[in-house]
């Protein structure tokens, strides 16, 4: 009975989402106030309906209702309760239900938190969100119904969740990532609504900015979590594989990053507006493209769920409609957009333009690398794969100008910057960052490579640039201690964002250049030593969990003769699917990770063992967390939080030119 209610409320939500589109648009068109106000009501009702459906599916997972086919394939009564709950989004059908649920969550947030906006604008935005939701509801109901029953011959127990997914990562990574993906739908809806209205002004940029930032923040955390998860769960210590599915999440991130910067320009200076709209449309379209690539099974990937051509076709159709429709609307309406601001060639506007160009170039690289194998195969040239070296090389090239501009971009004034005024700060930053690079590498690097020097320098260039800019701005009119307290949240947000990027660049540089990876054959009692560390293979013992049996290798690690850790790496066999899994032992630290993973037991009784030393790998995930924290700071900015309209005040204070160099400083 319960699953039928879940199914019913899903269909109800589908109908409500259509009403949420049609009725408010009719209201806006005819000026019917009741119809305009109905947008909010339909949004709330739709949320209640889909939430009911989601809760019912989760509850059915908890009580092991194996009469539901989806649960029978993806859960098992021996599964711990928290994995049963997160198994809801462990496969295709449920993850789509999560998708529509989150879309509805974003919609209701827009409906409830947009009191300052004109009611017609909100109605349009909600209508667009409703239309998107309608498409996805149709998809879920027609091709991927999570409530399909196995009756009358239902299984006694389920086939269990894929062991790779039985991990804390599954609990948190997909929801975060989806919050990001789906969150861009709000930016998309704002852009479409503005195009429909034919009104693109600074107010539009100001409204959609916090929403975009929130989505970007979730996506950033989501991607970082995915990388961390892959690192410890896949058992071979990589943190990014340029896997098509990773690329699918990285593309909207790149577009989103370009978007938050271009929105800032649009809001403060009133320029780049049609470009910003195009970015807003792209960010969400790329999220959809990602979904298509993942769900349709056209790509070979570790993430591939069981594929089904009708699903692929449906999403492809939806994709074509959404992207085609929005671009058409853009083509018709964008010419009406007038940029009022003027700026010189050397100005912050230009620097941000360069930032956007580089991000889009990176986006094109990823897009090419992801889609080319598909195209190649479809036109009959045979199947190919594009290796990691391609992406790595391209990003190594692109990051150089990007990091150089990030480091000093915020020193540029809006409108016009005298290059002469930048000489002093640029020299200072150059000297200080070169000095930091030398000290840092001298302390932590065993040898020098060109790439390591370059990467570390770029990282410190940004860090020094960020600190120097904070110093200049704080001492512009006050003493440092007083001035630094007066910096706004938005300013700190930018600083944290850029600082996070620097931390990540340093982490990537150190990990890629100074990791030591040894695949060795070790018998119990043997040891291997490198880089001050000595790994002693103590014993192998059995270890049993709730739904698996494991063989555990125990290692004692010594550094300079001092025992610093006992590490236990497991080889698990999950009982239901009879699937072997490697559970790596990781000794994490701020400046290095030690990583041990058991391979197979060789015929003579010894074991194949991976032993890795990964310097600064934590910084790769610390960086994105700092970026996301920056985003959070911006959301807490007074301008976006307060209900009263204080645009005028805050805009005035924000528009003051950056106090840099020359007579100012």
């Amino acid at each position: 009975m319960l699953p039928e209610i879940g199914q019913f409320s899903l269909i109800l939500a589908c109908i409500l989402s259509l009403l949420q589109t049609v009725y408010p648009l009719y209201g806006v068109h005819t000026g019917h106030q009741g119809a305009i106000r109905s947008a909010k009501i339909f949004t709330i009702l739709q949320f209640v309906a889909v939430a009911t459906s989601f809760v019912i599916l989760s509850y059915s997972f908890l009580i092991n209702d194996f009469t539901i086919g989806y649960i029978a394939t993806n859960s098992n009564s021996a599964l711990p309760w928290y994995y049963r709950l997160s198994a809801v989004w462990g496969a295709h059908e449920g993850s789509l239900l999560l998708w529509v649920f989150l879309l509805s969550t974003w919609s209701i947030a827009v409906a409830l938190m947009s009191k300052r906006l004109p009611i017609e604008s909100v109605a349009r935005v909600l209508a667009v969100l409703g239309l998107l939701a309608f498409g996805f509801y149709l998809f879920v109901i027609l091709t991927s119904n999570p409530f399909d029953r196995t009756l009358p011959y239902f299984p006694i127990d389920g086939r269990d969740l894929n062991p790779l997914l039985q991990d804390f990562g599954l609990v948190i990574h997909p929801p975060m990532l989806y919050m990001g993906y789906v969150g861009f739908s709000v930016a998309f809806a704002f852009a479409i609504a503005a195009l429909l209205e034919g009104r693109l002004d600074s107010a539009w940029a100001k409204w959609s900015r916090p929403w975009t930032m929130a989505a970007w923040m979730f996506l950033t955390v989501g991607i970082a979590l995915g990388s961390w998860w892959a690192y410890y769960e896949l058992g071979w210590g990589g943190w990014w594989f340029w896997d098509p599915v990773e690329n699918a999440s990285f593309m909207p991130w790149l577009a989103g990053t370009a978007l938050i910067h271009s929105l800032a320009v649009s809001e403060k200076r009133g320029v780049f507006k049609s470009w910003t709209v195009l970015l807003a449309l792209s960010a969400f379209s790329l999220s959809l493209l990602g979904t298509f690539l993942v769900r349709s099974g056209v790509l070979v990937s570790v993430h591939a769920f069981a594929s089904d051509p009708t699903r692929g076709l449906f999403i492809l159709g939806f994709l074509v409609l959404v992207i085609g429709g929005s671009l058409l609307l853009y083509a018709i309406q964008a010419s009406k957009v007038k940029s009022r601001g003027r700026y010189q060639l050397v100005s912050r506007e230009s620097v941000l333009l360069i930032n956007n160009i580089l991000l889009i170039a990176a986006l094109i690289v990823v897009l090419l690398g992801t889609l080319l194998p598909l195209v190649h195969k479809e036109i009959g040239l045979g199947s190919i794969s594009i290796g990691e070296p391609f992406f790595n090389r391209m990003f190594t090239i692109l990051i150089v100008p990007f990091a150089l501009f990030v480091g000093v971009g915020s020193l540029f004034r809006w409108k016009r910057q005298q290059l002469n005024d930048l000489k002093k700060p640029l020299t200072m930053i150059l000297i200080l960052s070169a000095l930091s690079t030398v000290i840092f590498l001298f302390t932590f690097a065993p040898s020098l490579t060109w790439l390591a020097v370059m990467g570390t320098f770029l990282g410190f260039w940004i860090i020094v640039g960020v600190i120097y800019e904070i110093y200049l701005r704080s001492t512009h009119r006050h003493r440092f201690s007083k001035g630094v307290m007066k910096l706004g949240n938005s300013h700190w947000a930018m600083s944290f964002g850029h600082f996070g990027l620097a931390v990540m660049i340093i982490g990537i540089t150190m990990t890629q250049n100074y990791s030591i990876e040894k695949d060795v054959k070790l018998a119990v009692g043997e040891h291997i030593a490198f880089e001050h560390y000595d790994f002693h293979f103590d014993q192998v013992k059995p270890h049993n969990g709730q739904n698996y049996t494991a063989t555990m290798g125990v290692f004692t690690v010594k550094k300079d003769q001092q025992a610093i850790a006992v590490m236990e790496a497991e080889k698990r066999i999950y009982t239901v699917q009879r699937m072997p899994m490697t559970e790596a032992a990781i000794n994490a630290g701020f400046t290095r990770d030690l990583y041990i993973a058991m391979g197979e037991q060789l015929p003579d009784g010894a074991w194949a063992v991976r032993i890795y030393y990964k310097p600064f790998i934590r910084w790769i995930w610390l960086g994105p967390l700092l970026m996301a924290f920056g985003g959070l700071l911006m959301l807490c900015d007074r301008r976006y939080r307060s209900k009263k309209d204080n645009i005028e005040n805050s805009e005035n204070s924000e528009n003051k030119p950056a106090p840099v160099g020359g007579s100012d400083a």
Partner: protein
Amino acid sequence: MNPRRKKRLLITSSLIVGLSVAIGLTLFALQQNIDLFYTPDEIINGKNETGIKPEVGQRLRVGGMVLNGSVQRDPESLKVSFDLIDNKAGQVTVYFDGILPDLFREGQGIVAQGVLKSRNAIDAFEVLAKHDEEYMPPEVADALKGMDHLKTQQSN
């Protein structure tokens, strides 16, 4: 030209220059990093579609089934070799130094990436086994179509 036009021209041209540099670099890097997929039979007799055989020294990917009884290990190190077969006449030997994936078994479909070292031998730097019961790269599935014994291996 008025300043506004000039600025637009500048923006547009910098966009075009940026994009073409990106595309140029991309294509250049791509050329060196595209790995074609072959089945064992295609390595010996040439691609099905074009008849082109891979050159010795070329990077490629090969997918097929690990021949029963062909896995040979070096007693001193992690060096291992095994034969790959497909549903045609092809048979090639793969050499690998490292840890094989969890799901590597004789009689299973795998994909190896590496360099062709002679007409029928590959030096692999990566070996991937199928991910779970339902998942297999489509190319491997094609190469093994009609070979029925995959299922029976599942029960170990």
